C-alpha cells in the first residue's frame, strides 16, 4: 500500500518560453504537514496549484509529466476537474473572501455541490466556523459581508469555507504572510490540529515557520527540487550544498 497521498512524476511546466518547473519528482505523505520551502519566485505556488490544476488557467501553459492523487493521474481525460479541485481546499496568500455574507461564504461550497436543506446547512456552517475558532466572534453577525472581518478572521473564514466541502487535502500557499504574528499563530496552531484528519501541503519561504510546522520538507530552488525528506533529517542533516546555505542563512 502506497502511503503517499500525492505523487508528482517528472513534472515540467512552462509558460510561453519560460521553464518554471523542472523535472519535479516528489511525494506528499498522507495526514502530515508537508512544507514546500524555497525563496521567492522558485515555483512553490506553481507546483502547489498544478496539484489542483489551477495552472490550467494560465495563458500559454505547457505541462508534461504526471501527478497522481490516490494513485490516479489527475490530467487524464476521464478526470472531472471540479471533483478533483473539491478534494483540495485552497488557501491563498491574501485571504479572498467571496463577495457575500460570512454565512454564505461557508455555505457556498455546500450549495454548489447540491446540498440545500436549510437546517442542516446552518448546523454545518456553525460546525466549520467552530472548527476554525471563528464562531464566537461572528455568531451575531453572520449576515454581515465577509469583507467586514479583519484579515486574520478572513483567513480563518477561508479555511472554514475550504473545510466545509470536505476535502482530503489542504493546499495552503503562505496563508500567514499577510497576517499579524498573533493571527499567524492561530492559523499555524489550527493546522497542527488539522493534520490528524487532513493531508496538508504548506508553502512558505520562512525557514522558522517551516521548522515549526513541517513533518516533511520539499526544498525548491529556481524551479527544481533540490532536496526532500522527513523534517528531522532535512534540518539536521542536509545533503546538498544549496540546502546547507539556505539553512544557515547565508543564502542569496
Amino acid at each position, binding site marked *: 500500500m502506497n502511503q503517499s497521498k500525492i505523487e508528482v512524476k517528472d513534472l515540467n511546466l512552462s509558460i510561453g518560453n519560460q521553464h518554471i518547473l523542472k523535472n519535479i519528482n516528489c511525494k506528499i505523505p498522507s495526514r502530515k504537514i508537508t512544507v514546500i520551502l524555497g525563496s521567492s519566485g522558485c515555483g512553490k505556488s506553481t507546483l502547489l496549484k498544478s496539484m489542483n490544476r489551477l495552472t490550467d488557467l494560465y495563458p500559454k501553459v505547457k505541462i508534461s509529466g504526471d501527478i497522481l492523487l490516490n494513485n490516479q493521474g489527475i490530467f487524464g481525460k476521464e478526470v472531472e476537474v471540479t471533483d478533483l479541485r473539491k478534494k483540495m481546499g485552497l488557501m491563498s496568500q491574501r485571504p479572498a473572501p467571496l463577495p457575500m455574507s460570512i454565512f454564505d461564504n461557508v455555505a457556498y*461550497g455546500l450549495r454548489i455541490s447540491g446540498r440545500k436543506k436549510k437546517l442542516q446547512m446552518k448546523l454545518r456552517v456553525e460546525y466549520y466556523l467552530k472548527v476554525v475558532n471563528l464562531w464566537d466572534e461572528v455568531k451575531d453577525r453572520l449576515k454581515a459581508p465577509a469583507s467586514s472581518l479583519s484579515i486574520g478572521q478572513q483567513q480563518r473564514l477561508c479555511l472554514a469555507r475550504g473545510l466545509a466541502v470536505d476535502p482530503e487535502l489542504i493546499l495552503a500557499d503562505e496563508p500567514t504572510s499577510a497576517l499579524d504574528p498573533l493571527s499567524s499563530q492561530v492559523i499555524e496552531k489550527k493546522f497542527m490540529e488539522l493534520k490528524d484528519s487532513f493531508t496538508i501541503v504548506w508553502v512558505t519561504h520562512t525557514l522558522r515557520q517551516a521548522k515549526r510546522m513541517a513533518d516533511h520538507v520539499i526544498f525548491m530552488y529556481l524551479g527544481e527540487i533540490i532536496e526532500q525528506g522527513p523534517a528531522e533529517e532535512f534540518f539536521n542533516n542536509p545533503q546538498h550544498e544549496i540546502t546547507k546555505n539556505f539553512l544557515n542563512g547565508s543564502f542569496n
Partner: protein
Amino acid sequence: MTALSLKRIYQDKLNTVVMIMALTLVITTPLIIFASLYTKSSMLFASDHSLWDLLFSSAWEPTKGKFGFLPFIISSIEITILSVIIAAPICFLVAIHLTQYAKHWFVKIMYPVTDILAGIPSVVYGVWGILVVVPLVSDVIAPFFGIQTTGYTLLTGAIVLSIMIIPFILNILIEILNTVPFELTEAGLSLGSTRWQVIKHIILKKAKPGIISAFGLGIARAFGETIAVLMVAGNVIKIPDGLFSASYPLPALIANNYGEMMSIPLYDSALMFGALILFVTIFLFNLVSRIVIYRLERSL
C-alpha cells in the same frame, strides 16, 4: 538662504497656486454652466411659463410662445432606453468572453479595436447610419412588420446610438471585470465551481457596482449624444407612437435650431431651457448611480 533654495520655494508656491487654480476651474465649470443656463432660461418663467407646462406639455409652437418640451423629452428617453437595451446584452457577453474565456492573442487584438471604435467621431456613425441602417429599417425591418417608413425613425436612431455606445460601455466593463482579483476565481474553482458558476456567483457579484456604473455612464452618454442621432432619427416634432415613428430628441432640437429663428421672442431661452434639462438629467443620473454604487460597495 541661498538663491537656489529661494528659487525652489518660489517654484513650490507657484506650483501650488497653479494647481489650486486648475482645480477651482474644474470644480466650478459645471456650476458656471448651470448658472448661465439657468439665468438665460429663467426668462421663460418670468414670462408666465410654468415648469410643469414646459416639461409636460406637447404643444411646441414657438411663434405663439408655446414651448412644450414633452415630445423631445419622450423621444430622448425612448431612444436612450432602446439603445441601451440593444447594447447591454452585447456588451455584457463580449466583456465576459474577453475577460474570462478568450485566448490571449484574441484579447490582445480586441483591446485596441474597441479603443479605435470608441474614438470614431460620431458624425461618421451618423453617415454610416444613413448609408446602412436607414435602408435596413425602411427596406427590411419595417416591411417585416408590415409597416412603411422612410427609415428615419426612433428605431434607426436607437440602433446607431447603440452601436456608438457599445465600445464605450465595453471598455469600461472590461476594465471593471479585470479588477476582480484572480484569487477569487481560484477560490471559487477550488470549492468545486465550474467556470460559469464562478462568473455568475462571484465575479459578476463582485463587479456589480462597477457594472451598474458602466451602464449608467453609457446611458448618460446616449442621452446627450447629438449629431449621429440627429442625422437618422427623423426630427419630427411629435411624441413617437412606435418604433417606426420619427423622433426628435432634445440634443437634436438644440443643435438644429440654435442660431436660427432667433427673432422669435424667448426662443433662445427655450433652447437654453432644453440644454438645462439635458444638463440636469445627466448630472442627476451620474449622481444617483454613484450613490447606488457606493451603497452596493459597502454592502458587499
